[in-house]
């Protein structure tokens, strides 16, 4: 029996010793990592709104779809596949494995916004008001993202068909493992946008612009007005525009928002958070307006919209010469090469607010109000009276007193202000369903810079009011119905 006793003793001893050596504090693994964290505090969700993915986007294909854009040789022959396809209004613009510009950055932004919206209310260390304000900012950001996405993939808003027109999937959760996506209707997307913006308007703390990278009530209201305008709801847009402009310097405002007066100095290319014309910063890399661009020019028609004295034509922004240097642009054609910065600001901009309000007022028969708003902008863009030379900025009288010519003038002012910045395509879309306007026909032309002759012409195809989902997305989502 002795051995058995011995073994038992040894075994007990082993267990005892083992228990002694292995007993270690449970908290050993519970350390707070540095540098990489899992968000839990309210302040961390606040920091999440400071993210370059939420500011920058690379989608500039819609810029090329605008009717103010022409292409020129010889760059046209050497142009890349996508530039050529999009300019020709072809739907297939991506090779098989490419990630679409229209979805890549915006959907990543949606992930971040959805995460904040779904989680911030359960975060620690913040008051409910602070949490709601952060959630409100994220909702406004989500609305902004969806607004551009619904314009990419859903038909222009038409109340009669919006409940059946397909847009893109409605994604409200941040989940990379989700694989089932079905397209929601245009109406569903707009409902979410409006609901998000209304929540934002009520929950965001700051009324005035505190920092251009962050949402204020003023910016959210301006954005909602823009959304209403694209739905044809001009009456709903007006009060929002009034409030937005009025509240820029409201409670919480910490940066000034004002138009640059080109008569005083050209602003050059301030970065998106330093551009005083921004209420809310969003920017995209726009290759059509980069100085390296040799392919896309303004059409002669668009160029003709400018008064020759228009300060926006300064050499800082436009070149009047083509390449090579020896081949001057044929006289009278007025094709201008765009040499702006390749960064386009397309967040909530003050010039846009004034032009939107001018258009809304004109539509609602407030013509003097409309003229005042458009002239407010033009005073900062065109020369004042110098000696005998009359000021160039007033709206011609015969236009100022007539509703439709005035609306047309304001729309042209939008081209003058935002040429080659992508704004035009959004305007073309909403006008296509606007009862005031007949369906327009648009063409894209390729010019030979030496002869000035049109060498190729492409007629607009109505199916190009929307982008097709890329082959990659279609490959990933078997049941998805693509746009034609």
């Amino acid at each position, binding site marked *: 029996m002795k*051995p058995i006793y*011995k073994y038992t003793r*040894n075994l007990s001893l*082993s267990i005892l*010793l*083992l228990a002694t*050596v*292995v007993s*270690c504090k449970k908290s050993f*693994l*519970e350390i707070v*990592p*540095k*540098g*990489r*964290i*899992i968000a839990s505090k309210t302040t961390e969700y606040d*920091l*999440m709104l*400071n*993210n*370059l*993915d939420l500011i920058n986007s690379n989608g500039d294909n819609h810029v090329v779809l605008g009717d103010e854009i022409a292409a020129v040789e*010889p760059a046209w022959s*050497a142009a*890349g*596949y996508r530039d*050529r396809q999009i300019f020709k209004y072809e739907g297939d613009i991506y090779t*098989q*494995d490419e*990630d*679409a510009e229209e*979805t*890549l950055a915006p959907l*990543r932004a949606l*992930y971040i916004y959805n*995460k904040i919206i779904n989680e911030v209310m359960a975060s620690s260390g913040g008051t409910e008001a602070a949490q709601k304000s952060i959630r409100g900012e994220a909702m406004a950001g989500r609305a902004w993202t969806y607004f551009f996405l619904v314009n990419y993939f859903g038909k222009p808003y038409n109340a009669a068909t919006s409940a059946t027109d397909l847009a893109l*999937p409605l994604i409200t959760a*941040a*989940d*990379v*493992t*989700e*694989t089932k996506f079905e397209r929601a209707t245009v109406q569903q997307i707009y409902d979410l946008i409006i609901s998000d913006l209304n929540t934002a308007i009520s929950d965001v703390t700051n009324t005035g612009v505190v920092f251009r990278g*962050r949402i204020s009530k003023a910016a959210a209201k301006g954005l909602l007005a823009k959304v209403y305008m694209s739905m044809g709801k001009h009456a709903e847009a007006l009060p929002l525009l009034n409030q937005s402009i009025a509240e820029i310097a409201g409670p919480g405002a910490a940066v000034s928002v004002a138009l640059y007066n080109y008569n005083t100095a050209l602003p*050059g290319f*301030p*970065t*998106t958070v*330093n551009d005083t014309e921004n209420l809310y*910063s969003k920017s995209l890399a726009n290759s059509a307006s980069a*100085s*390296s661009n040799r392919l896309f020019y303004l059409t002669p028609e668009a160029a003709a919209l400018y008064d020759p004295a228009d300060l926006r034509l300064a050499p800082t922004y436009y070149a009047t010469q083509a390449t*090579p*240097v020896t081949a001057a642009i044929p006289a009278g054609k007025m094709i201008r090469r765009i040499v702006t910065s*390749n960064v386009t600001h397309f967040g909530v901009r003050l010039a846009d607010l004034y032009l939107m309000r001018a258009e809304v007022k004109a539509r609602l028969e407030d013509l003097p109000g409309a003229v005042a708003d458009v002239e407010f902008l033009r005073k900062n863009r065109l020369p004042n009276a110098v000696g005998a030379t009359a000021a160039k900025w007033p709206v011609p009288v015969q236009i100022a007193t007539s509703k439709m010519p005035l609306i047309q003038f304001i729309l042209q002012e939008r081209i003058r202000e935002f040429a080659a910045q992508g704004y035009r395509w959004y305007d073309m879309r909403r006008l296509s369903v606007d009862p005031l306007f007949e369906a327009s026909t648009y063409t894209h032309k390729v010019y030979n810079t030496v002869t000035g002759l049109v060498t190729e012409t492409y007629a607009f195809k109505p199916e190009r009011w929307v982008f097709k989902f890329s*082959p*990659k997305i279609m*490959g*990933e989502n078997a049941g998805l119905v693509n746009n034609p």
Partner: protein
Amino acid sequence: MNLNLHLRCGINRHALHKFLLIMKLVIMLLTTAILQVSAHTYAQKITLNRSNTPLEKVMKEIRTQSGYDFFYDLEFIKNTKPVTINLKNATIEQALEQSFAGQPLTYSIANKIVIIKERLITAAVPVLLDLRGTVLDESGNPLAGASVRVKGSTSSAQTNEGGEFSLLDLPANAVIVVTYVGYVPQEIKVSAQNAANMQIFMKAEVNSLTDINIVSNGYQTISKERSAGSFAKVDMNVVSNRTTSMNILQSLDGLVPGLVVNNAPNRSQLMIRGLSTTGGTTGVGTTSQPLYVVDGLAVPITNARDNFPDIILSINPQDVESITVLKDATAASIWGARAANGVIVITTKKGTFNSKLKINYNGFVNFQGKPNLDYQKLLNSRQYIDVAKEIMTPAYFAQFPYSTANTVTGGGITPLDYLYYNNGLNPTQAQLDALASFDNRQQIKDLFYRDAVLSNHTLSLNGGGDKYTFYGSGSYTNTVSSAPGEKNNNYKINVRQDFKFNNRLSVYLLTDITYNKSSAKRNLNIDYFNNPYQMFRDANGNNLSVPTMTGYSNDVLADASARARVSLDYNPLDEFNYGSTQADNLLARLNTGFKLNIVKGLRIEGTYGYIAGKNKNTDLEGIQSYLVRKEVASFAVAASPSIVPKYYLPTNGLSGGRLTNINGDQRKWDIRHQLIYDVTRDKHALTVLAGQEAQEQFSTFTQSRVRGFDPTLLTSATVDYATIAGLVTGVALPQLAGVGSNLINDSFGTAETTSRYTSYYGNLGYTYDRKYTLNLSWRNDQSNLFGKDKSAQNKPIYAIGTKWSIANEDFMKSVTWVRDLALRATYGITGNSPEAGIASSQDIIRPGSSAFFQNGIGTAIQTPGNPDLSWERTATTNIGLDFSVLNGRLSASVDLYSKKSTDLLGLIYPNSFTGFPLGITGNQGDITNKGIEVMLHSNNIRSQNFSWTTNWTFAYNKSKTVDISSFTQSTTGAGQIDAIAKLGYAAYPLFAYKYGGLDNSGAPQVILADGTVTTNPTITKAEDLLYMGTTQPVYNGGLSNNFQYKAFTLSANMVYNLGHVMRRTRNLSYSGVFRRNVSEDFLNRWKVPGDEAFTDIPAFRTTSSPAVENNYFEKGDINVVSASFVKLRDVTLFYDLPKSLVNRIQAQGISFRVQLSNVMLWTKNKYGIDPEFYGANYTSNQHTVTFGVNVSL
């Protein structure tokens, strides 16, 4: 029992020698009471005059005078007669003969020991002897499991744990044969004199199988006989003599079946038994590297991006005692969640108890030469100019007009371009010829490269008494790289001490300190892809400015220089001295531990490790550095040269350069306690081990950068980062799209990571009757790798293994030609978890800073949460056979394995609608690896003066992706062409387009699955691609032959990797700016319609319309070639100086060696591609020569 033992302490050569002998005799003490008398003097001759003196006293006297020890039983002395003796200058033999005359005792002398025994009474009848003995190794350690066989009889025995055996009723003069794996068999005649206490010292075979019987898994050293696991021990003779690199891992090539070593410089990938994770290939997630264990503790894997010294790289191969590769689950599962890729256990040397002091010097110089810059066959200057003339047509310049090239974003203008632009796009032939007359290759080779030399000197000492041993080494490594101006000196001290306090407690302490100091100048990293006509030094020896290398045109530089009032001259050879980088690394590895025997069979072991590493990097761009001047110009605002510029950065005039300091700091500690219960009773042998360990890895680095630094005054200037973080416009040399410049505050940066692990493990080994073995092991790992669900952590890892030692079965006793035969079967799970912060079930965010953020600080999603994420699990089944036949002439291990890795961690591609189509780390799918591994050792010829041994390793691996997540599948041809996994195919599959040749416009065509031939760039689907094979070797291994003739040894090691494929790098150009040299094949490209009949190489196109897909050619089936190769890795000739000569200078051995490395290459491709340098611009470290010497004292 009356035990009386006197020992002398202190270390001198005699004493050490004596202790060794005493050790050998310790076993005898267990059965017989022996008195041992100490001696104090060592006279060889004995002078003695005594009468009627007790024998014991006489013996003491003889002992004193002779230095010989006496061993005897006190009982014997009782019956002896007094002695009368008269000796003068007598020998010991004479003295003993007189003393023992007529005594009932007999004696024998061995090794200065006189062993006294009772004289046996001879009988007339045949005497049957009972043989009892002990089998010991050279150091006197018992050898358990040695086979003792009686020649010509079936009678045999095996030694027990103590090395003891007994054979009863043997006839006198019987001959026993003692065999033990790895040792030279011995035949001994049994006699009455030696039967009672036979000590058999076995001599180790001098070959790779030395002490292969003991393997270490990092937690315990185990008798291989008692383990069912698949262990492979590396032949350290080959490893320590491989001298092309101080990286010990690179030296493992071809020595371990199933271990693939990529030996190309800067690519240290080791793979054991095929791919069981894909994370490592994509640079995220998990590593495909095995787990490295040094002296029992896992070391962190250091990435090149970490600013820390690498622990593995710091190990001096000369200090390594053994390397064991753990391959199957039973061997590796004790390492748990990090062992799925196998484990490499490195054990460094230690001293031996009771051994003499040994001093060893080993030094070598490895002459590596310059890289082979001619490896890729490119155009010479004449050809390049001729080709350029063909390409640079008016249409070409329409795309790249001067007005575009001559801008900040134009990319620079080469001298050749200028010839065109300055001459109306139509230079004369004479102008072109003038350019073509220059060829810079010789200058590149001479001015930017030098002969690389690696040298190492290691001096080591080791020795030990009965309570203390040590091994210490100091080494110096000088790495002279092929880049002029670089210095790299490595100094290292490594000391291991073992203390044995008593029978219960022993302690060790390992101190390993490495200091590395390196520096570099601004040597231009350039190869023959540069413009071949661009000289760097003129005929008069003046260094030339090469403005084209700045990427700016001359006008842009002149304008910026004038406006910023800063020289923007770029002279590559002058730049050499304008900056420097210094790095200081200090790495200390401290290990300590104890073993405490609590009661018999039960012991507790503690292991404690601490690693501290410091790294300091100082990078100075001097005042004259182009980089500094350019930075100044990029932030100097002046509309014209006449305006005094406004400088936003400190200028040359004020002070100087840019200093960047990076300080890295890493600490790691380990604590491990384990209990081991080890009992052998009758036929049962049981070892139970249970333990717990905790580990923390901490690393941090801090970077600071100042501008306007004056290296003499040590002052720096202030910079207004707040302003320049925004866009500064109107600058002389804009950085951003020709618009302006901006610079985010880079004056400070820091990062910090802490990883903690805690693990519990247990292990059981049971052997019955030396025949049947069972191994069980279990482990649970938890870590703070945050973001993982607790449930994902509690996945225990386990393994079960069995072994049948057939050779020990009774029915095998008669099969004398088989010495060892065992069958192993194991099954188990190992794991692999993602690195901290890489993959997670919750979103991991990291901070970011930008001028676009409120208060400058924001965050970004580092890794989106993946709730489905789980650890990678690899289930391995292994069946192995070990045998040794013909007296150990031929021994082999054969392993068959089947591995299934599930939930493979790697880059997966979530649905585009989730926002992360570019990939996240996740579970990709399942992959299987099946294979065969053979390790064969054969003593082909064994004679007195000549021997020839061969080691052959062979591995066959077949992998297959058996399941794949929907995230990972590519449906398009473009997506599939570079995919790393495809359902139903091998891991690392290589797909290719079916090349359809060129059409009549020189555009490459693809042949689709339905036979359509097209140039359409977007048409291919995944199913249109051809599977060409895998890029991982299917067959791999090595063959070593060692020939020894007298003092000469010739060793040749060959490695082979066969059965895989690779893409052929073509180095062509198809469109765009023609500025980079191209392959000679470019001469054969399509030029005019009709060329498609005899060339496959697509046209160079100046316009991109219509769109073409040159990948149809580049990644076409015609450009996939076999990657198989056999390389004679090294041939070494050793010469041992004759013993007589060596002894004259008091040395034990001196040997010289000459080694040729990477001597010969056989490949299956006909394009001269060395698959080890696939895709590289040049090869290096081939055909190197090493001279080495080894001196032991």
